[in-house]
């Protein structure tokens, strides 16, 4: 699925990713943990093609296709989805309109027909119910006046609607209370499937109690410095990142 090799990237001339390598096979969930400033969010932006995040070396491919050559919308159409750490407010654009526009843009890019209104509504209603989102909320401007938890839930809603192949969850647990965390995690877990992979970026182990990773990687100073099974997350929780900060 995702294959990153020796990836280097800089922001405003400062190198943040310094030769990062990572393999996420199909059907697996990998967690990226690391101290603040390690480059976790930079990795998510580089993979999604955000302007200002300049790749200076290395490769990143999705099913063998060069991701770095594509613009953000093309990557989205290929099935790359980023759940934002800080979802943006879109005034005047109802959530449903936003998602339907996105869905049709992706379909168009893939040469598929537009989604029909009844088909879309049916899907939206079922998805909203599963995530315990009031349907009326989807008629409001996306994220405007939503609480932190509602915004995160809305990210998962969009993810479920767009049904991407490769999911990046950037600090999805931040700002969530336990109940919201459970709902969000259930939503994410429901999306696990053999032909879908996930990269779960988190600072704390807590989220991984709910979304069980197949592999855990430690990102420090722009490189993966350690990899292991789920037990690695527990070790980090106990001992902190100091050891790895020194190793970097």
């Amino acid at each position, binding site marked *: 699925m995702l294959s990153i090799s020796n990836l280097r990237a800089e922001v405003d001339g400062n190198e943040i990713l310094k030769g990062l390598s990572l393999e996420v096979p199909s059907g697996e969930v990998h967690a990226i943990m690391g101290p603040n400033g390690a480059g976790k969010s930079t990795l998510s932006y580089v993979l*999604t093609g955000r302007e200002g995040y300049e790749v200076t070396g290395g490769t990143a491919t999705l099913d063998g296709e060069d991701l770095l050559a594509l613009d953000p919308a093309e990557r989205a159409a290929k099935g790359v989805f980023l759940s934002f750490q800080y979802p943006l407010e879109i005034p005047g654009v109802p959530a449903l309109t*936003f998602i339907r526009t*996105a869905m049709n*843009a992706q379909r168009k890019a893939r040469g598929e027909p537009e989604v029909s209104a009844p088909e879309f509504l049916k899907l939206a209603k079922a998805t909203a119910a599963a995530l315990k989102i009031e349907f009326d909320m989807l008629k409001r401007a996306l994220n405007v006046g939503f609480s932190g938890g509602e915004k995160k839930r809305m990210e998962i809603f969009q993810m479920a609607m767009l049904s991407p192949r490769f999911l990046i969850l950037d600090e999805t647990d931040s700002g969530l209370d336990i109940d919201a965390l459970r709902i969000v995690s259930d939503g994410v877990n429901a999306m696990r499937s053999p032909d879908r992979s996930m990269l779960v970026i988190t600072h704390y182990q807590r989220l991984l109690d709910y979304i069980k990773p197949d592999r855990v990687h430690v990102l420090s100073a722009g490189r993966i410095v350690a990899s292991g099974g789920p037990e690695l997350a527990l070790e980090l929780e106990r001992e902190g990142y100091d050891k790895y900060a020194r190793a970097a």
Partner: protein
Amino acid sequence: MAAVKQTVEHVESLEKYKHGFVTDIDQEFAPKGLSEEIVRFISAKKDEPEWMLAWRLDAYERWLAMDEPTWAKVHFPRIDYQDAYYYAAPKAKEGPKSLDEVDPDILATYEKLGIPLREQEVLAGVQGAPRYAVDAVFDSVSVVTTFKKELAQAGVIFCSMSEAIREHPELVQKYLGSVVPVSDNYYACLNSAVFSDGSFVYVPPGVRCPMELSTYFRINAENSGQFERTLIIADKGAYVSYLEGCTAPMRDENQLHAAVVELVALDDAEIKYSTVQNWYPGDPETGKGGIYNFVTKRADCRGDRAKVSWTQVETGSAITWKYPSCVLRGNESVGEFYSIAITNGRQQADTGTKMIHLGANTRSRIISKGISAGKSSNTYRGLVSAHPKAKGARNFTQCDSLLIGKACAAHTVPYVEARNGQCVFEHEATTTKLSEDQLFYAMQRGLSEEEAVQLLVNGFVKDVLQELPMEFAVEAQKLVAISLEGSVG
């Protein structure tokens, strides 16, 4: 009487401004320039009564003594008023009596623009689809008005201004110039002298006009000014919704458009006036060739509880200079102004409204959304004033500006004058830049950069779009997208 000059060579890139085509029809011009003779010529051409000619000549005299205003935040080379044509009309031996007598090329033009003139086609349309009557003005002359018979049954008069002057002189004499006086301002005064045609609407007491009325203005001839004059009267308890649309071919020379629109609402009457203005904005790099849109629009809520709402979507013209206003004379009368003004390329817009509260407990509401992109400049200029007698007057104003890119400018110039202590005026203003975070967010979901801009902009203008009649809201939304093409990156 020169025939129309072929100007196809001037029309270079039609794909950018899709209404930029020229229709090659036989036209009749008045000689170039402006003089008393020209005013007489226009009046004679239209077979006007003596009082109308006198009115025009009086306006011309006053205009000669006036100076061009310079206070607006727009810049353009001095206009040579002697270098333009003041009358251009499609050549026809007699006025067309039915649609079949209208030059097929003109009908084809309207077809290209998507304006339904053939009633039977409109009638054959989707069942339950809203119908609207159209008055089509081609250069200076109204070429056809549809649905007249059906409107007449309801007692509604909807015809060209020339026809109204001939057929309904008592109404025209009573109301023409009663809202915008002859010498109100330089351009209105010029219009009063040389106005060519426009629409006239009268809705009798208690009548709710059975359909949307619409006028479509098209400038076709080269170097010709277009000076329409529109007069709408809603008598006591009447209601009418009216929409105007405007397009013009692409030219190398700037063309002047100086219209005057007067609305009169008597007791308990309501007028809803919507504009979708898409005159040619000029070359995006040099600004050459666009329309100078210097328009005076004013409504008089003459009766108690009268209501007027202006809704405008301004996307075209090289320079837009207009302030659709409401004089809230009647007690408890209501004025509303909803505006979307978009400037791109080298466009300049100085637009806004005036809400003049004269009566007691009058209310007004202003929602203005200005969007600037490219190297354009967009100014909101508005006045809210309350007379000493306007006790209990209320106004709410919201002016939002959205900037796209680094080379554009937005200005907000609100004037507020409260001359009694019992009014409540609220003013809110915001200026935001289209955020890169928002753009990236939408792009990550699969939207191209342009689609992302369109979506965000449509969200920004939504409050105003929803004030437009449904079918025009859709058109306006598309127009918003087209005018901002190429505004990013």
